């Protein structure tokens, strides 16, 4: 999957169909490295246009991030369940 932070407030964003959404569950999962790389290239355009910063790809398995870091980014601090994206659901 592809992620970045929104410039204006730092919010974690995910790539879906050529744009950005705020929840991991709604975002595109790339089965092929080629489509992932193409999305990353397209995302760079949003960097140039100063919408997002620091886009990068990360690995998921069964729709869930492999790395703890991405699980926490997608949810919010694990020590404050009342904050971050997990608090909005």
């Amino acid at each position: 999957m592809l992620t970045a932070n929104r410039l204006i407030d730092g919010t974690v964003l995910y790539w879906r169909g050529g744009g950005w959404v705020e929840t991991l569950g709604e975002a595109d999962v790339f089965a092929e490295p080629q489509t992932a790389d193409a999305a990353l290239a397209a995302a760079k355009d949003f960097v140039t246009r100063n919408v997002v910063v620091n886009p990068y790809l990360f690995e998921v398995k069964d729709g869930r991030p492999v790395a703890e870091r991405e699980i926490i980014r997608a949810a919010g601090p694990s020590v404050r369940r009342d904050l971050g994206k997990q608090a909005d659901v």
Partner: protein
Amino acid sequence: MYRYDEFDARFVAERTEQFRFQVERRLKGELSEDQFKPFRLMNGLYLQLHAYMLRIAVPYGTLSAPQLRMLAHIARKYDRGYGHFTTRQNLQFNWPKLKDVPDILAELATVEMHAIQTSGNCVRNVTSDHFAGADAEEVEDPRPVAELIRQWSSLHPEFSFLGRKFKIAVTASGHDRTALRYHDAGVEIVKNSDGRVGYRIYVGGGMGRTPYLSYVVAEFIEKPDLLAYLEAILRVFNESGRRDNIYKARIKILAHTLGVTAMRDRIEREFAEIKAAGTLEVPEKECARIEAYFAPPAFADLPETALPTGGALGDWVTSNTHPHRVRGYTIVTISLKPIGGVPGDASHEQLDGLAALLDDFSLGELRVSHEQNLVLPHVRIKDLPALHERLTALGLATPNAGLITDLICCPGLDYCDLANARSITIAQEISKRFADGARQHEIGDLKIKISGCVNACGHHHAGHIGILGVDKKGVEYYQLLIGGSAAEDASIGEILGPGFGEHEIADAVERVVDAYLKLRQPGERFLETSRRLGLEPFRTAAYGEQRDGAD
């Protein structure tokens, strides 16, 4: 107490306006992230996992009631209702929006606060003893010296773009509470055999991936020569520090490559040159002016008063007070380590509540300690029961200062972009394990320090027991270190062996502590027992029941 003068006020106002302009340009797209980042970092603004993070300096860890109220206000209005006190006498907000940061800085400036020197390759905010001006043992208040260094360094054109950041600490007590020997440079205020006050200077300490303790480069520097000597150190650093490799750029690497003799010679040469030019001599008048800022508050003439004993109050008094230099007063540590809580976090209600306490109980002053606690430096002993009651109502009366649940812990993977593993969850688990007060007192002085990666913001090298989070293929593992200290008996902890899993590390800590209780001699602290016996008994204890960790 610390006051900014008109000069500072103008400087901060200018910096705030400059930053507002840069943020506007960034949001309009006139600056790219690469162009903007240095400005952002110069103003203490980082991008973290979930949001931006703003780091605010608390010079010498001293805060007034209006400043606390402002921090509470910012937490409410621009953040998520809380702030995090760090080991560097800073406060971090975890959720500010970039577009709001210029307003936040402008609001902070109204109470003489800012985020300058909290990041970037400059001389960082100078830290000092959180008991300064109150401790019964100090030679003199270290804060005027820290302030002198701040004024000299914050605008020094040559030193705004150093090879790497440069951290200075100042202490004046035989009991070091500043982690002096883990700083790039340390200033210890001492008296020589003639009774004259001067400075012992240390160079070359640091944590991070290659920890070093500093060594003494000058036994006694006379008062007027302090800035000349520090400038000499920075010149040597600027000339010879490595700029090619970020991991080798700190002065600790230069200092330990050159060795003490060569380093001292180089500094002495520069020092002689600067002294000959005579431009950096500290005039007595200037010292007096700064000292006046830190003039002691109006202490009352109180009778000798016994500390209260018994019950919850007595427990709290035993662990959370420290002798004051003035009769009838005591120093109170407010623990920010509630059992199972997030070390260093304070809510806006607590910040406001503390502001309301300050005038009644501590002559208007609050301090921030490098152990992520707060300190009321000047409390009348007879007020302790009333103060305890008020702090209890705020959830701030945890009786554990200096005990095993008074852990130091960095934000780790719950917030930090650089983290390899969570650290707060581990701190919480250990805190719950040792929640029992009697058990904590039986264990005594034991400092656990936890970092979520090798940058060592949680001081793991300096923990009696240190814990370092590492990443193994996306899974969190934890290394145990034994035998570190950041105090006057400073040492660097040694890694015990292979790492432990997330659910194993608290057990391993508990086994190590139990081994200590069995092995200690009467009156021996954990640190002393571990120095006497070495790692082996603790290794056996830690790995006794399982050896399937990662390496």
